[in-house]
């Protein structure tokens, strides 16, 4: 295995990369199925995001622990077994102690197995990096995913039902814009959010470039 990259990449960078620069939803557009399916409200988005975060942390932890032990030829089936087992654990635990939420998310929890961002992180990061780096990566990626679900769920709930986390925001006279709750609304809302994210990223880039041109070039910039 290649030597780990501990020395060159800081934990902060790994986190930022997972949470924003390489965000599973906003940048890689992975894991669309749970994203579009469950985000009819902010609360659903939050719990689905949390379940995914836990699975991602577990799988990155285990995969980075056994990196080098599992022969390259069978690493994918081994990762899938690990991920599927973790998802089943999360499903059983939710069913036992968060029964109401389980009834709402029920169908989508098993689908975490086929969320490609989880296998993607196992393959692209955890199998090549140290345990601590892999955990930071999982937390960054997982929180990024959760943030995206929460944002989309919030937008859809707010415009679709005039509520946020079940609390009335716009008052009783708000005419619910049903399309936001329906599946097409998920695509629409996601499109606007992606546009927003791109605008933010562009502004940041412009500001950086402006700073570079006004200031004298600094030597320690990579």
């Amino acid at each position, binding site marked *: 295995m290649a030597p780990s990259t501990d020395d060159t990449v800081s934990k902060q960078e790994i986190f930022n990369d997972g949470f924003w620069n390489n965000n599973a939803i906003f940048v890689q557009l992975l894991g669309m199925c749970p994203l579009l399916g469950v985000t009819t409200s902010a609360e659903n988005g939050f719990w689905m995001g949390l379940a995914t975060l836990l699975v991602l942390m577990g799988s990155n932890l285990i995969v980075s622990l056994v990196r080098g032990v*599992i*022969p390259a030829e069978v690493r994918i089936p081994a990762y899938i*077994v690990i991920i*599927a*087992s973790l998802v089943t654990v999360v499903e*059983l*635990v939710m069913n036992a102690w968060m*029964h109401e939420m389980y*009834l709402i998310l029920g169908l989508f929890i098993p689908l975490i197995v086929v969320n490609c961002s989880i296998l993607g992180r196992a393959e692209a990061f955890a199998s090549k990096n140290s345990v601590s780096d892999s955990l930071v990566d999982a937390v960054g990626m997982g929180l990024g995913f959760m943030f995206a679900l929460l944002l989309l769920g919030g937008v859809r709930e707010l415009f679709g*039902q005039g509520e946020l986390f079940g609390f009335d925001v716009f008052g009783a006279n708000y005419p619910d814009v049903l399309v936001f709750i329906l599946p097409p609304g998920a695509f629409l809302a996601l499109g606007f959010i992606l546009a927003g994210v791109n605008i933010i990223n562009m502004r940041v880039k412009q500001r950086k470039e402006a700073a570079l041109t006004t200031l004298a070039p600094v030597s320690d910039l990579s």
Partner: protein
Amino acid sequence: MKKFDKEQQKIALTLFIVAFVAVLMLAWVNMLTKAPIAAAQRAALHQSLLQVLPEHDNDLLVDMFKFPVSNKKLLRVFPAKNKKGDVIAYAWEQIAPDGYSGTIRILMGVRTSGEVVAIRITDHKETPGLGDGITKNKTWLNSFVDKMLAKTKWAVKKDGGDFDQFTGATITPRAVVKAVHKGLEMYQQNQDEILKAAKKQKERSLAKQSSQPVGGDK
């Protein structure tokens, strides 16, 4: 046949170990969560039963009995009893097979006299914001209260009946109304048999209690 070389053995062994550890872990978690899951399901069921039955003095889940509606299907019936032990109402699950997307499961409570106590939707896959009004629209759910087979037109208003449909959703409420109607018809036809089955269940549970040491129940 060629013998497996070292590399292949290692691969097979690795996969075996991974699967074995996964199975052990799942078996362990399954053991841990089995009782809490059963308890959570019972609690959820009990919660919905309380919403469709009048005040009662018995344990609904203990007094549950199975009633053969047809020669294939056993219906789980939950009787509500007063202090004297007489049945005052029954609750059971009625399934509407013709929802807009899939089946709708309805828990309905019916007084022995044949009036609906209340209905609640326990499971459905209807469109959020349209058809799922059947779970959220309290006024609509309450329109079933005290309705009986006679004197009520069991259809949505669009079809000339007594029940509201929703804007943009007629199929869903239509399916629910139809299912509740069917349930009431079923009750009227089998009233005597259901009562008999309830009494039989009571005898059985009494026999069980007397065979157990006193205070054995919790």
